[in-house]
């Protein structure tokens, strides 16, 4: 017992004061891309290089669909003009699928729940996690929120062991054919009102697996309330998405 206490002192206090203090992200971290259409000569090398067809050319210029983007940086790499630049902005979550389309317009963060819902869920959100073909990276970086660095519990958010105890589901993975039924049953078992949160490119669009006959291109027959893009999203991207959604961060 004494040994454990001494260890406790040695290990120190490690919870990061998020969101009061912004997280320190690695130098090479790739967050929200910034697009400079004025430099673009329409060579389209970026869209050819993209492994997931996330780059769309429209009249307005380059648009990157963060719902598909795996943040590999290939587009930035092949563009000699510097039209695409990945910033360190980790706040990527959105409540509207359209808001994941990044172009030169201003970023739009996830909208908070309405006041009535905030009253119910703002300080207590219980989620059931369903991995539906995820590679265990989105799962791992969701799970890590429970460690003392992020301490998800202090926001009243908890992952629970039964859908009956849950206010919603957090889905990862491209929704394989073999998980489609289990996902549906889990969703049905959650009492209403309930939320669906899609974490990662796979859950939003199928990611790299989009178009495989073995998968369903993400969550597409249940309405998604919160999209958290990335491959996988950084834990702070997920945490930011959750608390912004609950109206605890603007």
């Amino acid at each position: 017992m004494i040994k454990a206490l001494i260890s406790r002192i040695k290990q120190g206090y490690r919870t990061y004061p998020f969101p009061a203090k912004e997280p320190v992200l690695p130098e090479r971290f790739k967050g929200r891309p910034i697009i400079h259409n004025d430099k673009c000569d329409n060579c389209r090398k970026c869209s050819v290089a993209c492994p997931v067809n996330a780059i769309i050319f429209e009249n307005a210029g380059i648009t990157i669909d963060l719902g598909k983007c795996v943040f590999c940086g290939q587009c930035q790499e092949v563009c000699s003009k510097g039209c695409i630049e990945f910033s360190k902005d980790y706040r990527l979550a959105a409540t509207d699928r359209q808001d994941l389309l990044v172009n030169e317009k201003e970023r739009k963060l996830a909208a908070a729940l309405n006041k009535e819902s905030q009253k119910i869920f703002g300080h207590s959100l219980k989620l059931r996690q369903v991995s539906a073909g995820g590679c265990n990276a989105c799962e791992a970086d969701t799970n890590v929120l429970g460690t003392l660095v992020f301490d998800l519990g202090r926001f009243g958010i908890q992952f629970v062991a039964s859908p009956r105890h849950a206010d919603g589901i957090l889905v990862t993975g491209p929704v394989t054919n073999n998980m489609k039924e289990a996902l549906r049953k889990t969703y049905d078992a959650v009492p209403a009102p309930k939320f669906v949160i899609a974490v990662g490119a796979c859950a939003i669009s199928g990611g790299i697996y989009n178009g495989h006959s073995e998968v369903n291109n993400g969550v597409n027959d249940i309405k998604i309330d919160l999209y958290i893009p990335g491959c996988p999203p950084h834990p702070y991207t997920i945490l930011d998405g959750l608390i912004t959604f609950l109206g605890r961060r603007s």
Partner: protein
Amino acid sequence: MGRQLLAIYNCNSADISAVPRLSINDFRNTIISKVDENLRIVSLFGVPQTDEIIQLIVVLADDRQGILYLTSAEVAGSYQSLTPDCPQAHWFEREIAEQYGIIPQGHPWLKPIRFHNSYTSKDAWNRSSDMIRPGITDFFRVEGKEIHEVSVGPVHAGIIEPGHFRFQCNGENVLHLEISLGYQHRGIERQMKGAACNRWLQYMQTAAGDTTIGHTLAHCSVLEALAGCSIPVRAQVLRGIALELERLANHTGDLGALAGDIGYLPTSSFCGRIRGDFLNMTAILCGNRFGRNFLKPGGTIYDLDSKHIDDLRLRLKAGLKDVENAANCLWTTPTVLSRFEDTGVLAKETAKELGLVGPAARACGLDYDCRYNFASGIYQFQQVPVATWHSGDVFARAYVRWLEIQHSAEFILNQLDTIPDGSISVNTKQITADKIAIAMTEGWRGEICHIALTNSKGEISHYKVVDPSFHNWMGLAVVLRNQQISDFPLCNKSFNLSYCGHDL
């Protein structure tokens, strides 16, 4: 071994035409006799020649000599199963049956492993497409008034990948556990053939997302073997650092999770945090905690400058100190040891018979590690000691991880001090036609094997991935026999196998 087997070194290629084509009887006899002589089945897979004729190719490992042996046979319809004489073939034969409708006659346990449509016009179980649903198969049942069955999954109580477990219990005692997977099946291998090559890396990085570096390294090595290019030493060092950081993070996380499963919270919470510190070190390399977009065929994408090296060294030393403190809490706490020791015991002979790999095998006293037996890249120049323990229980699987944490940290610190100058990548050449290439790396879960075949146009015509979990799931099932069902989480965590790496 002349005409019956083709010898090949790890991370090398050979002409497909040089792979012997035996009769199926000779093929069987060769495998059975070689496994009796202590060779191991690394992979056994089918390559379709026509809709009916399938070429079975086996890769056998001679761990003592560090040589791989290949041989093959063509089959159509059915053949006499290897499994009754060679249990290592068990899971592979099920995979071949499911993929190509080839029946291994006399297989004692012939059931689907991933629940997908056959790749040929024949289904091994004569199911129509709409009858193929996950977990719908015969399960082994123990009958009797006092027997009850516990069914768990696919969705689990925590944040865990999906899998289905069926326990046959007498009271608390588990008589038998059957594991049914396939929920994560995304069709990666099938898509590797014909996919644009800018997608390959993404598939490999997400084959098992917690083993991004391990799988991507094996993939890059296979392509490099096919193209016949050699990698700058600096890139080899960087790859080694990334692979060991991945091991550090996952082993540390596993020690924490094992502590959590027995309710020993100090180590559980310390290690949960330290694991993240190691992941953040990988993020210094490439910006991503899982090592995404760090490796590419020909070398690495990013380099380290002296500032990064100093930062890594500092963080690594601090991380090692913290994990040492956290791990020692385990080894010196009697209540922890009494839960770890003699729980989930696997005998060395059983582990060998089943063909287990990685820390799970080493914890049974099998001194086999790819980094040593089949050294490639930087491991040819700097060896990492093979960590083994003899007791085969949860304690052994935990302790081997702790030994490996220390070895990996020492390896990285050495590499950081002696990293040679030079470039970090070479331009990859065109991959060569009509070849077969094999690359094995020692991921944190064990041996990862990638095999690629090319056609006459120099395109990938077949791609095979063997995740260590493919060898090891059966080990977990066997370990549960005569355990209390309440020890399942602990035993499961002590293996910590991949669902998506298995399901692909």
